[in-house]
């Protein structure tokens, strides 16, 4: 901002602040220590009049950096929504008076706490700049959809319908993907509203898969350009300005630009050759559920024949969970979710087309959820499919006949049945590229054994699909079992590569209906990413944030920590090996800032200085006053709200604590810790989110990276000759209403035990 910074402070005296604190003193502090040019008090700052007062100062008096001392930054957000200025908030209500008991004996320390929060908020806003878009933005509405199956086709059709053109890239020679072989699909709907609740009611039956219609729709839509026999050989750029090389088998390569990308490469059928116990490969009469569709398609309504001798099938057994839900080597540990209804449907083919045929489904748990699922289970029962709770141990090919050996779980005995054909309900294997961190796992292995294990994974890694020209690897990161899901419950489309959204069975196993629904959701996010990139706004979860990371090149030592640690792979390296921030790939978590040992990375509204100046502007009483200072750096999404709610609930916090919310613990710079210790803080508490496999950090790796970084804080403490107990790192959940303040109080107790810091000047 070219204009001179003009500071104004506003102190609310409502909600008991005026009664509990000396507002005149706060005003003096804001003017004298905070250097606010103008400070005003208001008895209800969030009221129309209070807000109008601030608005007037902004519009008519040139105030462009404002400090609001009132309630928590989480409260009255709509009232204090001054988006055209830089703003900080001092939390006097939840942060001070609600956490402190009343009474004269507490007055001095409570007032000191409030004065410090004023100093901190003033210092913070002084070092903030009102963010504005970099000017790098472009609106590119075209989407790249990778994968020519049902998921990718749905994504393309739905994007086009919303007015967003698509390039659809498919490896295969025709559209349809793994679902193209379907004879019929499991019905999408449950029984209609007028169908009676009776055993003879008309229930949904297997239906036309609708793939041909989708293909026709795509071919007729001028907004969708299809590339068949094609692969993505290189993807670079960022949301709003992705560039992809689309190479066809014939050798031609076209380079196209995109706003965002959907990866919808579906799944690959599980390789049943890994199931010799079920006689797969020993006889053609043991087929997988995928192969059965081809047989059904060939039969086209006529009786299904068995592959070995063309004899009409008179008895068929379906082995559920074949090679699934199993810890055995080569098996899938998960449930593929679609196979129960798939087997019911296939059993119904036999019931409808092969007169007198016995169809038996051998299952452990039959999983047909929802209204449509359960109705379809009933359809199967109506068709007189036999459902038997049994665990198949072996299929024996004995001349022309097959013997299925299983444990009947109802009768609790080992038994067997003869049949003409066995269908193995095999699962889905996600069709994804290599995990970008597979190489990293090799590089960072701590011992030879670990290295060998990581190397083995790397060696069997599949070829890349996206060929991202990213510092952190070629494809979407994986979470477990090869699925690229983010494992967020609340935000299923959260992605670790901004602007690239996974859809369908690459995220988790799913049936066709779910894959189609999933495609719509992922397309929504892709469209949104393109639109936000055009505005210069961050993607989830900081939508609307116009700031972006910038760095002082002359100070950079090219240590690469930022490029390695960014949880979103947003940072590349330029030809001179300096970091290259791709702002629309950035999620504004600040992990790069926390990683930088030379402190050259910053955001306009969040920087080393905005926090460090808060730390430095706390008054540190000398050690004889026996007023320690505890610094708490709290994740703004979980630990900080927990402290707010602790205040609501009447919990108590030591008056010696000074809490600073941080975007993510990953943004915490070791320099803040060192500087705080050097300036006489007695204890430091860091509160981030859970960081294991079930991580809750909304920036995925931020909390984990911070913990790693802070494990080195011991060296700092040692070099300062300070006790290790003075710095503590905790995982804190938003529900830790009692625990969060307790952890800080515990630190105060620790300080009391080990004594005050000797670093007070």
């Amino acid at each position, binding site marked *: 901002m070219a204009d001179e910074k003009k500071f104004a402070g506003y102190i609310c005296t*409502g909600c008991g602040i005026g009664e509990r604190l000396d507002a005149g003193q706060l005003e003096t502090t804001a003017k004298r220590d905070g250097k606010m040019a103008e400070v005003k008090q208001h008895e*209800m700052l*969030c009221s129309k009049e209070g807000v109008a007062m601030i608005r007037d100062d902004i519009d008519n008096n040139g105030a462009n950096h404002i400090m609001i001392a009132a309630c928590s930054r989480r*409260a009255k*957000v*709509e009232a204090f929504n001054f988006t055209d200025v830089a703003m900080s908030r001092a939390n006097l209500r939840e942060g001070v008076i609600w956490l402190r008991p009343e009474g004269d004996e507490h007055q001095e320390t409570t007032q000191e706490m409030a004065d410090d929060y004023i100093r901190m908020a003033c210092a913070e806003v002084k070092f903030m700049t009102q963010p504005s878009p970099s000017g790098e933005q472009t609106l590119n509405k075209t989407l790249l959809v990778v994968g020519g199956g049902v998921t990718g086709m749905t994504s393309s059709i*739905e994007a086009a319908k*919303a*007015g967003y053109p698509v390039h659809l890239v498919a490896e295969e020679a025709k559209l349809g993907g793994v679902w193209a072989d379907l004879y019929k699909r499991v019905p*999408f*709907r*449950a029984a209609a*509203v007028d169908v009676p*609740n009776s055993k003879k009611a008309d229930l949904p039956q297997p239906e036309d898969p609708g793939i041909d219609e989708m293909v026709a729709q795509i071919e007729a839509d001028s907004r969708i350009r299809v590339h068949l026999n094609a692969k993505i050989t290189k993807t670079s750029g960022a949301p709003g300005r992705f560039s992809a090389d689309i190479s066809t088998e014939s050798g031609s390569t076209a380079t196209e630009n995109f706003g965002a990308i959907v990866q919808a490469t579906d799944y690959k059928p599980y390789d049943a050759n890994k199931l010799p116990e079920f006689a797969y490969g020993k006889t053609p009469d043991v087929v997988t559920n995928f192969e059965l569709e081809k047989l059904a398609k060939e039969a086209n309504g006529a009786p299904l024949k068995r592959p070995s001798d063309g004899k009409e099938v008179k008895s068929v057994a379906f082995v559920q969970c074949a090679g699934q839900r199993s810890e055995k080597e080569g098996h899938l*540990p*998960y*449930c*593929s*979710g679609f196979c129960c209804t798939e087997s019911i449907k296939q059993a119904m083919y036999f019931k409808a087309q092969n007169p007198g045929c016995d169809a038996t489904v051998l299952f452990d748990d039959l*999983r047909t*959820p*929802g*209204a*449509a*699922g359960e*109705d379809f289970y009933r359809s199967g029962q109506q068709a007189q499919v036999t459902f038997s*709770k049994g665990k198949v141990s072996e299929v024996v090919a004995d001349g022309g006949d097959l013997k299925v050996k299983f444990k009947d*779980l*109802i*009768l609790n005995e080992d038994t067997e049945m003869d049949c003409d054909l066995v269908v193995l309900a095999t699962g889905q294997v996600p069709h994804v590229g290599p995990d970008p961190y597979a190489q990293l796992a090799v590089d960072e292995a701590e011992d030879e054994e670990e290295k060998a294990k990581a190397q083995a994974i790397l060696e069997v890694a599949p070829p890349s699909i996206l060929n991202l020209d990213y510092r952190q690897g070629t494809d979407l990161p994986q979470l*477990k079992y090869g699925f690229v899901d983010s494992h967020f*419950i*609340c*935000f*299923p489309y959260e992605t670790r590569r901004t602007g690239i959204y996974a859809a369908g069975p690459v995220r988790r*196993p*799913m049936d066709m209906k*779910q894959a189609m*629904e*999933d495609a*719509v*959701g992922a*397309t*929504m996010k892709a*469209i*949104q990413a393109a639109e*936000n990139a055009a505005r210069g706004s961050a993607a*989830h979860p900081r*939508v609307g944030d116009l700031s972006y990371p910038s760095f002082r090149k002359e100070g950079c030592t090219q240590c690469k920590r930022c490029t390695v640690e960014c949880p979103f792979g947003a940072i590349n390296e330029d030809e001179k090996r300096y970091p290259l921030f791709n702002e629309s790939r950035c999620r504004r978590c600040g992990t790069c800032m926390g990683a930088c040992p030379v402190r050259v990375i910053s955001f306009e509204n969040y920087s080393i200085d905005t926090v460090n100046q808060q730390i430095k502007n706390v008054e540190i009483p000398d050690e004889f006053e026996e007023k320690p200072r505890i610094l708490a750096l709290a994740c703004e*999404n979980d630990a900080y*709200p927990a402290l707010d*709610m602790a205040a*609501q609930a009447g919990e108590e916090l030591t008056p010696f604590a000074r809490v600073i919310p941080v975007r993510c613990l990953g943004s915490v710079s070791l320099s803040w810790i060192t500087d705080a210790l050097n300036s006489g803080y007695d204890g430091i508490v860091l509160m981030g*989110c859970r960081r294991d496999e*079930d991580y*809750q950090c909304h920036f995925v790796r931020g909390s984990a990276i911070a913990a790693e970084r802070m494990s080195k804080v011991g060296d700092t403490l040692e070099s300062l000759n300070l006790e290790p107990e003075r710095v503590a790192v905790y995982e804190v*959940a*938003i*529900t830790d*209403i009692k625990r969060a303040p307790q952890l800080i109080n515990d630190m105060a107790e620790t300080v009391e035990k080990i004594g005050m810091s000797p670093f007070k000047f």
Partner: protein
Amino acid sequence: MTEVVATNETILVVGGGISGMTAALEAAETGKQVVLVEKRPYLGGRVSQLYKYFPKLCFPTCGLEINQRRSKMNPNLTILTMAEVTGIKGEKGSYTASVKLSPRYVNENCTACGDCAKAVEAEFDDDYNYGLSKRKGAYLPYRMAHPALYVLDPRIIGTDDAQKAKDACKYEAVDLDMAEETIDFPCGAVIWATGWQPYDAAKIQPYGYDRFDNVVTSVEFERMADPGGPTDGKIVRPSDGEEAKKVAFIQCAGSRDRNHLLHCSRICCMASLKQCTYVSDAYGEDADISVYYIDIRAIDRFEDFYEKVQAIPQVKFIKSKPASIVEGTDKRPVVHGVDTEGYNRFADEHDLVVLAIGMEPSVDKDSFPVDIVINREGFIEAAPENGGVFAAGSASDALDVNRSVQHATGAALRAIQVVNGAAGVEG
């Protein structure tokens, strides 16, 4: 009179639970104007009443905090609480919605300071805790309620308490003259995200929910496990407050049942597995947990969680749909049935029985204010006949949170397709 600025390019979202919030935010964050209408005084719906999510055992309020921040910051989003859609007229791209607003008796001046609650005396059953505790007649529905505005219970209006609340407020936030009003505004597309409600457990007569103190539903149990809930997170018997260590979970309570709900409610297996961990975490080796089930539907990657719970030595699984519950000595519920694996009859006494209660659509089949294709179970089917009205989340089927959010995100695109057409962007 409440005014809503809306046009034919506005998207109306009905229901402010996790699905409605998601659909509204995804559309608003794409630059669309959205009006979100919620019946309760706050957003978040049933998710706000959950203690933990499966399978991560993380806390719903964590994601809710993000969604609330998103909605506080977004200028494209208008939120109407204590509001119900009473009619939708018109056609795709050009609807008029009628919305009935019930009085909160508290205006935007409210700072959530809590003085009114301190002043009033009358107490009522707390809906947020499914009636397991009481709250005042002036109340903040729960700690993280958004909007963070108090509510006056209509039952105190006209009593001394109402005046006390008004007198206690320093900010002229209590407005006893507020009255019900109905407003009409235009919209181009509608996202129907009215969610679900627990099936009425009293209808499952053999289980005696209405007769036995120590038979509770899974949604009530969820509140009991929450440290901020009515029992401070202690798992106890409602009859006497004693520790409940021997706990039974009965699956398909009301679901997959011709006498009740025909459908599988999908979430109940996972919810019970999750709740097994609550008991096991609370009582460790002293816990004794039985899960009575037909099929454990831990679908796709949830299988991992099933395995995790199977590995807890204190949890056993019995394949059975119990026939009945009778009250034994000391109000201990006794579960009767046949274990179908081996056909053994059982009569097991427990401290507490939790019914994994089914989910049914919260809007009755016959009371949709708009023509819409529903199925036999009352869930909305995706159909061209629905015009510009799209279901999101568990209004469309029994869905868990992850799938609801996924579905709601898609619903946002469906609505955008319609309003983009209205705006002439399409093509």
